[in-house]
């Protein structure tokens, strides 16, 4: 199957702090990959590098075969890489409709804003301002804005964080629909339960390295992952 994303030996340091130490992986079309790991393991930095907000020190990023390692964020977005943020950032003073419309002004192609809003369940709220939305609605709005880019790859940063079970189920449904449309999704997530039945595989980052690459179920049993999350003393206690 066609490779949408290839990350090759990406390294990043902030001062003396090495955040990513040679991260490599690839994603196929229509694949949902969970990017997991304890706090500070480099997940958000990796998303920032992929979306172009942070430049890697070395390594290469290829999107649909094109080297995008040095492209600015807006060019990556126009190529079809959408992203959401850990803390949703709607344009507070713009209406929901305007928040999505504005994306369409900067990309080529015919995007139907109203369809996107219906897809994420925000059509009824299209005339409300970004500041008038709840957390769950803001997250949907971020998703809608990313979808207006007609993306091939979505980078989702903790989209389930802070949501109630009903909202989680609804967004899971939307993401499954996107997968069927052939959109690849790389999602950073702490709510592991929400990934069950959704992701095709997971990557676990710890101290800037990928320590696990495989199924979600297998991850639970992996000793390295358990050590990363629970620590040496807990493993010793487990025997």
């Amino acid at each position, binding site marked *: 199957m066609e490779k949408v994303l290839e990350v090759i030996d990406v390294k990043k340091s902030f001062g003396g702090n090495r955040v990513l130490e040679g991260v490599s992986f690839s994603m196929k079309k229509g694949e949902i990959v969970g990017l997991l790991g304890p706090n500070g393991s480099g997940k958000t930095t990796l998303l920032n590098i992929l979306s172009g907000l942070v430049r890697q020190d070395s390594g290469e990023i290829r999107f649909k075969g094109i080297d995008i390692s040095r492209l*600015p964020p807006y060019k990556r977005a126009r190529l079809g890489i*959408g992203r959401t943020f850990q803390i949703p950032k709607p*344009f507070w*003073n*713009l209406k929901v409709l305007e928040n999505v*419309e*504005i994306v369409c002004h*900067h990309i080529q192609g015919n995007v139907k804003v109203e369809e996107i809003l219906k897809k994420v369940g925000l059509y009824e709220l299209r005339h409300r301002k970004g500041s008038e939305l709840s957390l769950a609605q803001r997250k949907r709005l971020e998703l809608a804005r990313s979808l207006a*880019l007609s993306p091939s790859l979505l980078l989702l940063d903790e989209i389930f964080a802070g949501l109630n079970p009903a909202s989680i189920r609804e967004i899971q449904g939307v993401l499954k629909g996107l997968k069927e449309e052939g959109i690849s999704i790389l999602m950073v997530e702490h709510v592991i339960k929400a990934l069950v039945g959704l992701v095709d595989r997971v990557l676990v980052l710890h101290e800037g390295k990928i320590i696990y690459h495989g199924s979600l179920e297998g991850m639970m049993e992996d000793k390295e992952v358990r050590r990363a999350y629970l620590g040496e003393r807990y493993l010793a206690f487990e025997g």
Partner: protein
Amino acid sequence: MKRLSPFIPIFILLLLPFELNPYWLRLLTSFMLLACLSYSHNLLFYFLGYPAFGGIAFFGFGAYAFSILYNSYNLPFPLSLILGGLSSSLLAILVAPIIMRLKSHYFAIATLALQLCLMELAQNLEITGGTMGIAFNVPKDSNLISYYSSLILLSVLLLLTLFLERSRLGLTIKAIREDEITAMSIGINTTLYRSLAFVIMALFLGIAGGVFSFWNAYVDAPTLFNPMLSVKTFFILTLSLSSPVHGPLLWSFIFEAIFEMLWSRFLVLHGLFLGLAIVLLILTFPKGISWKRF
């Protein structure tokens, strides 16, 4: 009718000169130039969220460029004005790669530094007349020419503000103001739009500087780079925050009226009273006053 409302004062101003004596003509020109400064600065301040506290640098630069072209090279008045504006834009293009990297108060300080640098240069260069400045002969009807030049400039700036308030371009620029990182991640070339707004602001400030020079018939550095101009402008813009189309026009008029009243009655203490008036107004209306209230 609602859409035309900001142009009602413009129509009145268009017909007024036939009824006015030179004093009122000069006073209204002064008011319109202040409104032009406010609208120009608002392109960056309101739409993009960048406070160019030293934006007067481009006003002064354009004024000197106009004065030199009109006085020393005898170029026609309209051509000198446009070239004065373009020279300010060119200056903006040259400094934008450095200044537009900065944000909020760092950006404000950088523009102030530019203003002070240009002021020092103007006071020490031969071409700008050094501390003596440049005095030049103006035609008999210079008051009327200045009046209508200010009015044309004000109308263009008002139209531009209305366009930005209601267009896709304005929406894009406002998105950058709201959150630049998000704007980048949805495909907006933020550097391009920021630089564009900066250069356009400089263009209009430069032209306004040219009109001011002609109106004043004399330019020197302390007059052109006077920090009081920035204080007046940003006071007006703060009060206009919730009404970017009508606000600068209304508040420039009120401010100029207060200033003139204080100046003519309290020659020595007018600065003190003006300061108190500014503090009182800002404290009373910290978020500006919306035109909708009227």
